[in-house]
């Protein structure tokens, strides 16, 4: 008997207008609209073009080093005394995070579109580094907008971008974090539409970016499916990933959305706690609004002004979230929870000492949630957490917080 298409699939979105339910869309200035439509056309052609897919896969294998390992964290599992914990080791990718998966896909599109200049925004600097890297690899000039606060707290990445030949432009507006960098990148794009490709780093922004970035990042979840079947002969019980804009999370989650046996949890930056203003938990504590090209959950006041937010992690320091996550939250398919700064910091040290892996502060949030859940689960249950970035960039921040001299 032929399988009938699943009418209630969680993987069907977005529609042709870029909507995931009420979320997503194309809320951009008219100057950018023709460009976004061009990008959509090119993306539609590329995603079914065997040559494009082959080139991307070749780069993923030989440049990035994919597939990234699925690692059984034996000591951590024993220590927590519950479910088996696996890490998807995307921090072992070239450039040190999952961001390269998206950048390689997008730069191939930029080349197809004949664009000669790359711009990007960055928070933690991981996307900036990945953008600068692929720009160097393909011989295109690259400008990276980065909040001035982030330039300071992610100095090693700023230096890496400069070494790679990118121009790093500090943005002083607002709190000088990711939101402000994105505003400035959009201003650059609207001014230089003809030759410039805007390489958005997360699964957010106007359609087709959320869908496109998700597809490039879904390599994570697809590999996990295969690797988990090989390792355990079954799907995991729980997936956990950190969400800032949400690209590493959607990349892990998407291939599993229709597997109802797989519980899925996204971890937001709870900062100093949800009672005050010092957090970035847009899904847990925000409300739907329109910013940066899409409708999604945002941290905002009663007048629709966007709040600044706070997180110990520059990569999660964003008052919005990719629109597909907003939809998955409202649909009840994915649970989103906050983790506080201090919990992430404890998890960072825990993993470093116990497994000899220094994680970035972003996945340290996911890890803190794993540490809460694993002990409550049975020993034959399986958790997969996306270890989406390595912590080299954070050692100065962490050293300062722990009062260690460097």
């Amino acid at each position, binding site marked *: 008997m032929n399988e009938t298409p699943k009418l209630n699939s969680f993987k069907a979105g977005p529609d042709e*207008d870029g909507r995931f339910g009420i979320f997503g*869309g*194309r*809320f*951009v*200035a*008219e*100057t*950018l*609209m*023709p*460009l976004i439509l061009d990008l959509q056309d090119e993306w539609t052609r590329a995603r079914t073009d065997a040559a494009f897919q082959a080139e991307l896969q070749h780069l993923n294998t030989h440049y990035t080093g994919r597939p990234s390992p699925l690692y059984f964290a034996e000591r951590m599992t024993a220590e927590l005394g519950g479910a088996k914990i696996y890490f998807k080791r995307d921090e072992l990718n070239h450039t040190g995070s999952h961001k390269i998966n998206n950048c390689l896909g997008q730069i191939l599109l930029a080349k197809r579109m004949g664009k000669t200049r790359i711009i990007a925004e960055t928070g933690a600097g991981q996307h900036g580094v990945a953008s600068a890297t692929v720009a160097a690899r393909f011989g295109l000039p690259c400008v990276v907008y980065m909040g001035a606060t982030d330039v300071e707290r992610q100095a090693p990445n700023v230096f890496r971008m400069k070494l790679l030949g990118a121009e790093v432009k500090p943005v002083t*507006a*607002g709190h000088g974090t990711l*939101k402000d960098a994105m*505003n400035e990148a*959009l*201003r650059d794009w*609207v*001014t*230089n*539409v*003809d030759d410039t490709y805007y390489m958005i780093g997360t699964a957010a922004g106007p359609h087709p970016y959320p869908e496109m970035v998700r597809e490039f990042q879904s390599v994570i979840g697809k590999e996990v499916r295969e690797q988990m079947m090989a390792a355990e002969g079954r799907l995991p019980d729980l997936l956990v990933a950190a969400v800032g804009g949400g690209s590493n999370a959607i990349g892990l989650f998407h291939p599993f959305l229709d597997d109802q046996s797989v519980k899925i949890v996204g971890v937001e930056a709870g900062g100093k706690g949800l009672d005050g203003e010092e957090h970035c938990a847009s899904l847990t504590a925000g*409300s739907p*609004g*329109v*910013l*940066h*090209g899409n*409708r999604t959950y*945002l941290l*905002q006041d*009663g*007048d*629709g*002004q*966007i709040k600044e937010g706070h997180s110990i992690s520059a990569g999660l320091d964003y008052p919005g979230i990719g629109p597909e996550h907003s939809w998955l939250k409202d649909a009840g398919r994915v649970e989103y929870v906050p983790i506080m700064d201090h919990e992430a910091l404890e998890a960072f040290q825990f993993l470093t000492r116990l497994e000899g892996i220094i994680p970035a502060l972003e996945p340290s949030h996911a890890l803190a949630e794993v540490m809460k859940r694993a002990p409550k689960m049975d020993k034959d249950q399986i958790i997969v957490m996306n270890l989406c970035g390595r912590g080299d960039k954070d050692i100065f921040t962490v050293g300062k917080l722990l009062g260690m001299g460097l």
Partner: protein
Amino acid sequence: MTARMDKRFADLAAEGRPALVTYFMGGDPDFDTSLAIMKALPSAGSDIIELGMPFSDPMADGPAIQLAGQRALKGGQTLVKTLEIARRFREDDQDTPIVMMGYYNPIYIYGVERFLDDALACGIDGLIVVDLPPEMDDELCIPALKKDINFIRLATPTTDDKRLPKVLENTSGFVYYVSMNGITGSALPDPTVVGGAVQRIKGHTKLPVCVGFGVKTAEHARAIGASADGVVVGTAIVNQVASSLTADGKSTGATVPGVETLVRSLSAGVRSARLVAAE
């Protein structure tokens, strides 16, 4: 109300000159000063007023309008108060069209239907919402048109002949031609090129075409006004406000008169535009 806007353009056409459209930021640097600025605009020569709605993340604006919005928000400005500025203005002036300009989120959060009802009650004639392209018309444009509020669309150099009909489809009041790709407050492009673009748009619509982005002086206004039905000045006015403030951003005795003087000069430029063109 669309009638006020249509009458204004008809009167200007009879007079044989383009409109001077002036933008200022509601609540910059405070409610009372910006209300005084608005009340001073018509007698200084402004034909249509764009009332800026401050937003925390103005993605299409340059530094001058960004800072004006920040000053307004810092001064406690909200969308309710911006509507109140319009209402107070309307108590004394029934003729000058008011167009509210800004970004969608504050309106979305206010509630679209509630906003449109309140805008009508406050005497608003049109809306320009930068981040609502035609693809998003169901959000605000169609509801606004149903209530007889103009929805004024931006057309840009990237809006080619293929796309223009879509952009113009639900546009009313006038077409706002953005004279260059970029953010507000950039340099003025070549008036001849702008003139060609205006003609191109006029080939697709009977609506008046107003040109903005980059117009700062009376000379600019005259040059652009030679081909356009209206000249929009924003950044220059916002800069004039900024230059009159104290170090901590408070208004001074020079704030309102400074804007009046600038607008008078721009108005003279606009009024001489067609004379120059006729020469």
